[in-house]
Every structure is written in structure tokens, then in C-alpha cells.
């Protein structure tokens, strides 16, 4: 089976790759979104922490 044949998917290229593509896209983006959220949270907690320690001094 040639590469071109493989990508043609027996004439169903749009449908098969459209499905797998969207799936890969979403499942690929999600971890990055979560990582971004984590960084934001950590920054915020660190800021609060700094504020508190400064406030006590």
C-alpha cells in the first residue's frame, strides 16, 4: 500500500482525516490549556504568599 493510497483512505480521506484530525487537535490542545492554567494558579499563589510574608514584616 503506497503512502498516497494510505492518505486517500479509499476515497474517504476527508471524513477519516477530518475525524482523526479534530480528535488529535483537541486532545493535543487540552494538556497545554491545563498546563497554562496551572502556571497561572502557581503564579497567583506565589504572589499571595509574597504579599502575606511582606505584610507580616
Amino acid at each position: 500500500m503506497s503512502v498516497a493510497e494510505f492518505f486517500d483512505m479509499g476515497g474517504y480521506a476527508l471524513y477519516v482525516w477530518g475525524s482523526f484530525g479534530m480528535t488529535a487537535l483537541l486532545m493535543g490542545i487540552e494538556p497545554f490549556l491545563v498546563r497554562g492554567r496551572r502556571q497561572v494558579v502557581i503564579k497567583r499563589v506565589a504572589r499571595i504568599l509574597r504579599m502575606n510574608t511582606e505584610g507580616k514584616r
Partner: protein
Amino acid sequence: MSNRLINWFKFASPATFYPLAEKIWRWSTLIAVVLIAVGLYMSFFVAPTDYKQGEGYRIIFVHVPAAWLSMFIYLVMAFWSVVGLVYNTRLSAMMTSALAPTGAIFTFIALWTGAFWGKPMWGTWWVWDARLTSELILLFLYLGFIALQGAIDDTRRADRAGALLVLVGVVNIPIIHYSVKWWNTLHQGASVSVSSGSSMSSIMLWTMLIMALGFWAYSIAMAMARVRCIILERERDTTWVSELPEVRQ
């Protein structure tokens, strides 16, 4: 008995769960990557071409796992909601909200891949058929849950209101599952059932199961990662958070 209860409550405390979640996250990420890689290989190179649908049927390997998980995640959310409402544990609500985005994504994937499969098979992207409609409703339920939680400032109220919404929506799950049985629809009937074995070729079945397990591990990984963020957000004033290495540097 009581000993075991105490044990459970120990893990139900965010402080002890936080490090545990990291371990679970690591392992399930690993499992997800391996299983999905194997599953993808099998779905394109091992599984044979279908005699009726040609290559187009390969969509099944993402459609069905995603559809299963969209429902399963909702059930897990409902479980945590009940626990939260009854035992008033803090962690359960955090789990519910950690799961919702992943559930919404899988629901969307199920709809999207279903539509992309329906076009060649039924000749239309969309029909107002019982299963498709109820799956769409599931997406709205997820979105409604996320929006509701976003709109409420008070976390306790957000938790309880969200839990209630999830429980109200849970009627939808059996409807999705049995819709093909209750109404005559365009959609495929159950092809995998516990009792009567399977009507599919076993290699296809295995591929689907491996993909489903991979998606499942992926969901766990995402939920754990997200619940860690939520724990940090909510417990930011406690001492144990201020002693964590990641916030101290």
C-alpha cells in the same frame, strides 16, 4: 470498617490527595500515550478494510471510544456529585469540575466524528434522530455545568448548584444508551454487548477497546492535572500550600 472509613476520609482531604494526584497523573499519562499509540497503529495498519464501508469505517476507532467516555465521564461526575451532596466532602466537587471540560471535549469529538461518518454513510451530516439529539443535549449539559460554575463566585454554592445540575441531567445518559433500542433510528445498534459476544470481527473489537482504554487513561490524566490546579486555587490560604516547593521558588 470504621478504620477503612477514616482511611477514605484521609484521602478525601485535598492536602493528602494533592501528591497522590501527581503520581496518578504520571502513570496514567504514560499508559495513555502507549495505549493510544498502539491503538492508532492497529486502527490504520492492522484492522482490515470493512467489506461494506471500505476504509471509511476506521472512524469507529475514535467515534465509539469518545462516545463511550463522554457518557462515562458524566456518570463519574454524577457519582462525585452524590458523594459531595451527601457527605459534604470538599474533594468530590473539585473532581466534578475537573472532569467536566474533558467530558465536554469527548462529547464534541463524538458529535464531530459522528457527523463526519454520517455524511458518507447516511448522506447527511445531521439528523434530529434520538441518539444524536440526546448526545447534543449532553454537550449542552456539560457546557451549562461549566458556565454555571463560572458564573457563581461563592465556591460552596457553585459546588452544590453544579452537583444538582449534574444530577438533574443524568436522566439523559440512559436515554443516549437505549435510544437505539427504544426508537427505530438511523444510528447503529449496540455492536458490543457483554452477554452475546460481539458481532464485530475480534481484531476490530480489540482495537476499539485499546483506544477506549487509552482515552480513559487520558481522561484520568487530565482530570488529575486539573484537580491539582483547583486544589491549589481553593486552598491557597492554607499552610500546606505555602510550603509546597512549586510555589515557593
